C-alpha cells in the first residue's frame, strides 16, 4: 500500500469512536485485520537534467549543422556561378577563335592571302615515279603575273576580319585586279572632276534582302 492509500484510509475506525445507536460492536461485519505498517521505499527519482541537456545539445548541433550546410551550399553556389561564367567566357572565346581559324582556312581566303604574298599557281606539273624512275609530264615554273582568273568572294561572316578586299557589289565575282584598277581610276577621276562638278552619286546600295527574295516595300520617310 502506498502512502497515499494509507492516508486516505477512513479515520473513523478507531476504537475510541463512540458507538452509534443501532450499531453494536460485534454485530457488524467481521472487522478487517489491520494491515501491518511497513517501510515504503520511495522509487528512485528519475534524473531529468541530462536528458534536457542532451536535447538542447542536439538542437544546437542541428542548428550548427544547418548553418554549416547553408554556408557551404551558398559558397558552393557562388563557386558554381563563378565557374559557370568562366565556362561561358571560355566557350565564347573558343567559338570566336574557332571562327577566326575557319575564316583564315576558307579556300578563297587562303588563295587571296597567297596571291597577296606574291604566290602564283603553277599550271603544268610533272611526276616522278620512284619505283620505275620515270619522269612524266613537263613541269614548268610558275610565271609571276599570270592571270589568277576569277576571284571567289570571301565568306560574308559578320564580324570576321576580311582577309580579301571585298569584290564590288554589283559583280561580286569579277576579277579582282580589274576591280582594283577600276576603283583606282574612279578615284583619280573623282579628284580631277571634284572642282568642276560633284562626284557622280554613289551607286545605289544593293538591296538588303536578308536571305529572302522579296525586297521590303518602299516606305515614305518623314521629311522627304
Amino acid at each position: 500500500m502506498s502512502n497515499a492509500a494509507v492516508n486516505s484510509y477512513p479515520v473513523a475506525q478507531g476504537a475510541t469512536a463512540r458507538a452509534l445507536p443501532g450499531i453494536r460492536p460485534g454485530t457488524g461485519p467481521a472487522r478487517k485485520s489491520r494491515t501491518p505498517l511497513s517501510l515504503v521505499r520511495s522509487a528512485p527519482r528519475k534524473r531529468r537534467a541530462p536528458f534536457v541537456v542532451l536535447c538542447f545539445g542536439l538542437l544546437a548541433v542541428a542548428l550548427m549543422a544547418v548553418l554549416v550546410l547553408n554556408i557551404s551550399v551558398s559558397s558552393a553556389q557562388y563557386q558554381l556561378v563563378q565557374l559557370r561564367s568562366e565556362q561561358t567566357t571560355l566557350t565564347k572565346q573558343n567559338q570566336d577563335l574557332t571562327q577566326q581559324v575557319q575564316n583564315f582556312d576558307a579556300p578563297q581566303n587562303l588563295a587571296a592571302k597567297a596571291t597577296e604574298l606574291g604566290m602564283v599557281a603553277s599550271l603544268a606539273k610533272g611526276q616522278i615515279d620512284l619505283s620505275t624512275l620515270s619522269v612524266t609530264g613537263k613541269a614548268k615554273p610558275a610565271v609571276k603575273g599570270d592571270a589568277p582568273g576569277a576571284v571567289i568572294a570571301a565568306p560574308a561572316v559578320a564580324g570576321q576580319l576580311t582577309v580579301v578586299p571585298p569584290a564590288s557589289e554589283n559583280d561580286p565575282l569579277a576579277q579582282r585586279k580589274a576591280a582594283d584598277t577600276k576603283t583606282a581610276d574612279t578615284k583619280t577621276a573623282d579628284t580631277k572632276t571634284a572642282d568642276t562638278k560633284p562626284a557622280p552619286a554613289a551607286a545605289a546600295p544593293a538591296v538588303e534582302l536578308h536571305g529572302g527574295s522579296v525586297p521590303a516595300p518602299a516606305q515614305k520617310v518623314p521629311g522627304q
Partner: protein
Amino acid sequence: MAQNTGKASKAKAPNATRRLRWGLGIMLTLLLVVGGKLFMVQGLDVGGMAEAALNNRLTPIELPAERGSILDSSGTVLASSVIRYNVVVDQTVNTKTETFRRLETVNGKDELVKVTRDQGISELAGVLGMDRDALRDALTGTQRYYIVAKDLKPDVEDQVSKLQIPGIVTEGTSKRVYPNGSVAGGIVGFLKDGTTGQAGLEQTQDEILKGTPGKRVFEIGADGLRIPVGVDELTPAINGKDIKLTLNSDLQYFSQQAIQSQKDKLGAEWGVIVVSDAKTGNIIAMADTDAPDPNDPGKVAAQDRGVRAVTASYEPGSVEKMITAAAVIDEGKSSPLDTFTIPPTYTVDGQTFSDAFEHGTEQRTLAGIVGYSMNTGTVMVGQRLSKEQRYGWLQKFGIGEAPDIGLPAESKGILTPADQWDGRQQYTVLFGQGVAQSTLQTVRAYQSIANDGVMLQPRLIDSYIDPDGTEEKVPAKAPQQVVSKETAKQVRDILESAVTEGEIKEAAIDGYRVGAKTGTSESPCDDGKSGFCGFTASIIGMAPMDDPRFIVEVVLQRPKGSIYGITNGPVFRSVMSQTLRTFNVQPSTGEPARLPQYAK
C-alpha cells in the same frame, strides 16, 4: 450522508454520461466533417485546387537543341551554329533612369561611380557603333521589350554588359555561319529565319539537322525562388545530327574558281563542273558559277542560288554518242573497229543530218565516228537499234531518272517515250538532241562505263554523325550492271582514242591516260518558242584510263562568240589534274589505246 451522496451521484451519473456521449458525438461529427473535407481537398482534390496551385508554381523552360553542322569529307565545317547576342532594352526603365551607379576601377580601387543617362548612351553607341541620336531614340519610349542591336559577337556583348546600363540586357541567340562562304554555298543552302532551312541541304535535311528541343519543368515559389523539393523534370534536348558530305572543299573551290573564270572569259550564262569518284559514286565537287554565299544569299540572283548540276536539264549533245556506241557494242551490232562509209550528209526517212565540220565521203571506224563526233555516222550506226532499244538504252543509262543525292529540285531530265518521238527525234536522241538531262545524269552514265559497266548512284551525303560522335554511313544504293565489262572496256578505248587520235587532244594530261568526249548542243531559248539561243558546250572525261578513278564534266551554257572557238578542254585538264594530284593518283602505266579513226 453517505447514502445521500450515493444517491446524488446516482442521480447525476446518467446525465453526465449522456452529456459526455452527446459531446463526443458532436465532436466526432465535426471531426468527420473536417476529415471528410480534408479528404476531399487533399485526397480527391475536388475543384482542382491542388492542381491549379501546382500549375501556378510549375514553370516550363524550353531547352533549345543545337542545329547540326555540315562538314565536308575531311571535316572542314561548311555550316555551323554559333552564339550571337541581341541587345534588348526595357524602354520604361531606361527612360526614367536619369543617373545610375556602377562599379568602376578608379586608380586601382573599386568605386561606385555615378553615370548620367546621356553618358551611358554615348558609351553604348560607341560600343555598338551606332549613331548616338538614333540610339537615344531606340532607348526612349514605353515599350518593355525593344531590340536595339542584333547578332553581336561575344566580345561586343561582354563590353555591353560591363556598361551596366539600366534596362539594357543581352539575350543569347543561335546564328548560323558558313565559314567557307560561297564555296559549296548552293549545295549547303541557307536558312530563312535563322531556324528553318530554305535551300540546299539545309532545307532537305532540316529535320535531321534540327534535333528535338528539350524541356525543364520545375516549381517556383511566389518569391521567385525554385522550390527545392518540388517537381523538377528535365527532358534533355537532343541536338541535331551533323551531316558529313563527300565533297572536298579545296577541290570544290578550285572547280568553282575554274568555271567562274571560264564563264567570265566567255561571257556565258552559267557553268557547272562536276567531279565524281567512279569507284564509289561519291561527288567530290559540284561547282556552280556565281554560287550564293549562304551568309548573305540575297547578294546573288535568285536563279543562281540552287545547284545547277542537278536542277538544270539541257540537251547534252554529242556526249550522248557514248551511250549509242555502248548500246550497239553491247547488243553485238557493232564494234570499235567496225567500218562505215560516211557521206558528207546523210539522209534517212527524209531527215538529213550533217556534221559540225565539212568532209567528203570517208571511211570511218566507230571509234573515229565518236572521236570526231560525227552525227552522220552516229545515226548510221544507231539505226541498227530499234526505236524501243534506243529508248531502253537511254533509260538504262539513267536518262529520265533523277539521281537522289538529297538536294532540292533534282531534275530527272526529259526522255519522251519512244512511240511519241517524231521523225527526226528518233535519230537525234542518238547524238543528244531531243532529249534533256542534268549534268549529274551525264556523269552517272559515264561513271558506269568507267566502273566496268556497273552504275553506282551518286552520293553527296556520306554519313550522319550523332551528337555522341557515332557515325552512321549512308548506305550506297544497289549497283546496276548497265553494260558488260567487255563493252565498258571497248567504250573506254573509244573515249581514250578520241583524246589520243581524235579531236579532243587538248584534254590530254601529261603522265595520265585520259578518255574524254565533248558535247555541243543547241540550246532552246528560255521562252520556249523563239528557236535556239546559243549553245551548250560541255566536255566530260575520265582518268586514269588504266583504272578509271575520276570523272570530270565541265558545262558552259550559252558562251558568247563563235562556238567553234570555244573550248572547255583547258578547264577540264586543270580540274582533272588537280583532282589526280589531290588524291595522289599514280601516273598511268601501260600503253594508251590508239584506235584508228579512219578505216584503211
